[in-house]
């Protein structure tokens, strides 16, 4: 739990302190009537003036705080203790107890709280003595719910299961393990109940159903001052102000408590992601459809910028397939997103250029880039379930892509969407177009995603792990489909994946990324037969071999961009490591025309026989 914001805490503290110290402040008697001086303005004896029967307003205000907070504190405490106990028992014991506590709480929750309080108060008669149990009853179900939910979530966690296995009694587990763990949500609920009880108490007193006159209460004061408010508004405004300030600081304290208990919802800082300055003209491969040059992506964190993509360069020609491979966390997807200007808000391109034909995408304004996206430049995302909008029909989502770039009527766009679905091999496309994403299988969803991406015949398609979520047969069909589309349109394809067997099938050239950098780049045949970087070799060994022998996993994990080693990023996991590897980051060197590697020992690997490559 983090620290609670001190400002609302201090405000509530001051109010509570005043309420506590009221009897010792030497204030006039709050119930002493002084009719001759009724509605008198402020004076030295009566700092805030006198009310409609001449009682001291300041004194009544502070005594009112005392009664209001007392009622709120007692009722919230009673509700908290009983409600939490019931919720914990219901959650932990289950069965009949569960049914009795939780269902009963649900039924009480159905009643509007004010209506419930009102019914009970009118039946039992007004007064502070009934107010406390009534408010406790109103807030009880909230605590039952919160505690119940808390118990259900910790009940099956390992440390609770472990204690059970050790034979610790249920009661002990409840008291020792579960209670401290649900403390946070219960505390939030408690502060909510306190704030709400102050409002409800004043409301009931205002109606004459709460605190009984002449005892001071804010609700009563407001109710009484209403009749004279046209002539003297101050006696009305003071209790309104006191009540509002109290509830405001209590609500602020609720938010602070919630923020301290629940670390979510801390907004990340928003960042513009256009580059500040233009780079001078960069050389790019002639005839390339898309060329990425020295792209660096930065994420600003409180501890400084981290760079999950560093100085990455590659290009794709029309009709060519470039595969970008690497483990999770290697920066493959971020590179793809940076090209389309779709990086998450926290990330921004820091350096480099992306050339699409003659245009430089990183420095293009958003409106111009938007006209390219989905038209000439399209992208397929990894998880089709989350990447499709669950509330719109598949057909509608494709129509949207079409109409974003071409002025077609809804009807003809719909016909085109159906044709596209048929084109990507969805049977009964006219009916399927009316389906929602959750009504389709994973393979169908990915096909729909592809249909959406090719809707405007892009010249370049970036596919981010388009087959990861699919089973092997569907995978093969999707790959076949992509190959066909490429052949049809002369489309360039950037295929981001961690599955090497897929790469062998589809790619012309391969870029291997590790920890945000390109570590090897070359034609697919060379990469597979004679890898010039130990990481590529390790990746190849980690793919399931065709002879049925066991794949060899790469020990360790990709280092986080904020914890990069001083030398070669792969050195800590590399079986061919030398001392020189850890001295300085190795440069990307050209081993052969069109084949680059970032390993200082590449000459040794080049001499090894084919199929062994780097460190066999």
């Amino acid at each position, binding site marked *: 739990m983090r620290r609670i914001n001190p400002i609302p805490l201090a405000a509530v503290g001051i109010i509570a302190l005043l309420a506590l110290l009221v009897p010792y402040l030497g204030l006039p008697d709050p119930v002493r009537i002084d009719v001759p001086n009724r509605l008198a303005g402020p004076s030295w004896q009566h700092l805030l003036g006198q009310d409609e029967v001449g009682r001291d307003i300041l004194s009544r205000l502070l005594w009112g705080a005392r009664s209001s907070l007392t009622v709120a504190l007692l009722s919230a405490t009673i509700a908290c203790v009983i409600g939490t106990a019931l919720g914990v028992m219901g959650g932990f014991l289950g069965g009949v107890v569960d049914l009795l506590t939780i269902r009963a709480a649900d039924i009480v929750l159905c009643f509007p709280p004010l209506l419930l309080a009102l019914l009970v108060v009118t*039946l039992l008669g007004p007064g502070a003595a009934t107010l406390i149990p009534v408010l406790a009853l109103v807030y009880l179900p909230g605590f039952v719910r919160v505690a119940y939910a808390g118990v259900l979530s910790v009940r099956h966690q390992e440390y609770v299961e472990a204690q059970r296995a050790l034979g610790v009694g249920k009661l002990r587990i409840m008291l020792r393990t579960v209670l401290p763990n649900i403390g946070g949500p219960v505390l939030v609920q408690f502060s909510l109940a306190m704030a709400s009880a102050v409002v409800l108490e004043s409301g009931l007193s205002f109606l004459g159903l709460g605190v009984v006159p002449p005892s001071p209460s804010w609700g009563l004061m407001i109710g009484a001052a209403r009749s004279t408010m046209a002539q003297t508004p101050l006696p009305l405004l003071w209790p309104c102000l006191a*009540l509002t300030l109290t*509830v405001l600081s209590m609500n602020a304290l609720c938010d602070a408590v919630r923020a301290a208990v629940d670390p979510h919802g801390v907004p990340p800082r928003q960042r513009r992601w256009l580059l500040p300055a233009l780079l001078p003209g960069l050389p790019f491969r002639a005839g390339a459809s898309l060329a990425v040059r020295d792209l660096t992506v930065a994420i600003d964190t409180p501890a400084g910028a981290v760079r999950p993509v560093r100085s990455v360069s590659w290009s794709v020609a029309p009709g060519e397939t470039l595969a970008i491979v690497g483990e999770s966390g290697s920066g493959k997807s971020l590179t793809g997103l940076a090209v389309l200007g779709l990086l998450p808000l926290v990330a921004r391109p820091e350096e480099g250029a992306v050339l699409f034909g003659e245009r430089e995408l990183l420095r293009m304004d958003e409106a111009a880039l938007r006209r390219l996206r989905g038209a000439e430049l399209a992208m397929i995302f990894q998880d089709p379930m989350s990447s499709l909008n669950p509330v719109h029909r598949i057909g509608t989502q494709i129509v949207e892509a079409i109409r974003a770039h071409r002025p077609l009527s809804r009807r003809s766009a719909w016909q085109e969407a159906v044709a596209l679905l048929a084109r990507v091999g969805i049977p009964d496309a006219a009916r399927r177009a009316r389906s929602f994403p959750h009504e389709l299988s994973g393979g169908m969803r990915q096909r729909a995603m592809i249909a959406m991406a090719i809707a405007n015949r892009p010249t370049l398609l970036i596919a981010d792990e388009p087959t990861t979520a699919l089973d092997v047969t569907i995978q093969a069909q999707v790959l076949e489909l992509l190959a066909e589309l490429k052949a049809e349109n002369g489309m360039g394809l950037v295929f981001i994946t961690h599955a090497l067997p897929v790469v062998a099938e589809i790619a012309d050239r391969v870029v291997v990324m590790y920890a945000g950098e390109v570590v090897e780049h070359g034609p697919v045949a060379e990469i597979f037969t004679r890898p010039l970087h130990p990481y590529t070799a390790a990746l190849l060994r980690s793919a399931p071999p065709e002879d049925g022998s066991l794949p060899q996993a790469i020990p360790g994990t990709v280092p986080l961009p904020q914890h990069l080693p001083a030398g070669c990023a792969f050195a800590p996991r590399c079986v061919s490591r030398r001392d020189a590897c850890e001295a300085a980051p190795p440069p990307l060197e050209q081993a052969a025309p069109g084949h680059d590697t970032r390993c200082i020992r590449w000459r040794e690997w080049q001499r090894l026989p084919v199929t062994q490559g780097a460190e066999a």
Partner: protein
Amino acid sequence: MWVLRRIGVALVLVWIVASVVFLAIRLVPGDPAEIMLSQGGVSPDAAVVAELRDQLGLDRSIWDQYRANFQGLLSGDLGVSLTDQASVSGQVFARLPRTLELIAVAALVSVLTGIPLGLLAALRRGGWFDRLAMGLAGLSLSVPVFVVGTLLVLVFAQWLALLPAGGFTPFRTDPTRHVAQVLMPAITIASSLAPVLFGMTRAAVIDVITRDHVRTARAKGVAPAGVVLRHVLRNALIPVVTVLALHLGTLLGGTVLVEYVFNYPGLSGLLVDAVNARDYPMVQGVVLVISVLFVALNLTMDLVYGVLDPRVRRA
């Protein structure tokens, strides 16, 4: 099938609520005959009380009363008021539309302010507009409704004399006055509902905007307005509608304070008076109508929810 089951559950819920109210009101001390006859703090004559009890059927066993009560309900008869022999259903249905109108106008005002402002604040998160709107919503949420109502009366009725301080005029008698009298109480209710919708919309938009499908929409080249309306707001409305439904439910019967401040003759006032007079049939009638409406509201919201989120639709 699913709808039928929902309606069945709803009916059982209404029956439970009606029974609980029936029992609670009779098990609590306070004899309606005695209360009706006590005027000016003088205890009534025991014989007169007994006669009235007999006349009202209060001396029968609770079980007999319960049976008679529910037989009446099944034939659509809510009974007659103990205090003035008026038909309960007549009274309830005269007052109900007024409260519903109040809630509807308040909901409309809240939806039209809370949702657009919440969307705007979320899109400008951390900016001056967001901070200003958050501050105002927090303040608005912290001022109790009867304080808002009283202050509105002070400013607009007493000081500026722009609007009537309260009361009710039927629409057919004087449309302008009717609207003027509904306006302030509705805005008072909205002052507590709009910030809730604002906060929920803001939170939901902030959540939805980071989802993958929004990125897909941008990748399609959809214009920013289309992304925000069709892919962000559309999805964010799902939790907002849930919260709206919950609050509308609490407003049924929860408008007591506002009706009191503005002297508005709605359903809540009727209930308070009836409870005070131990007017059993009237209390039961009002609570029954409120719970039926509450359950109907929940059913409607389930259907609306199905429209908003196709994933919860059933075959």
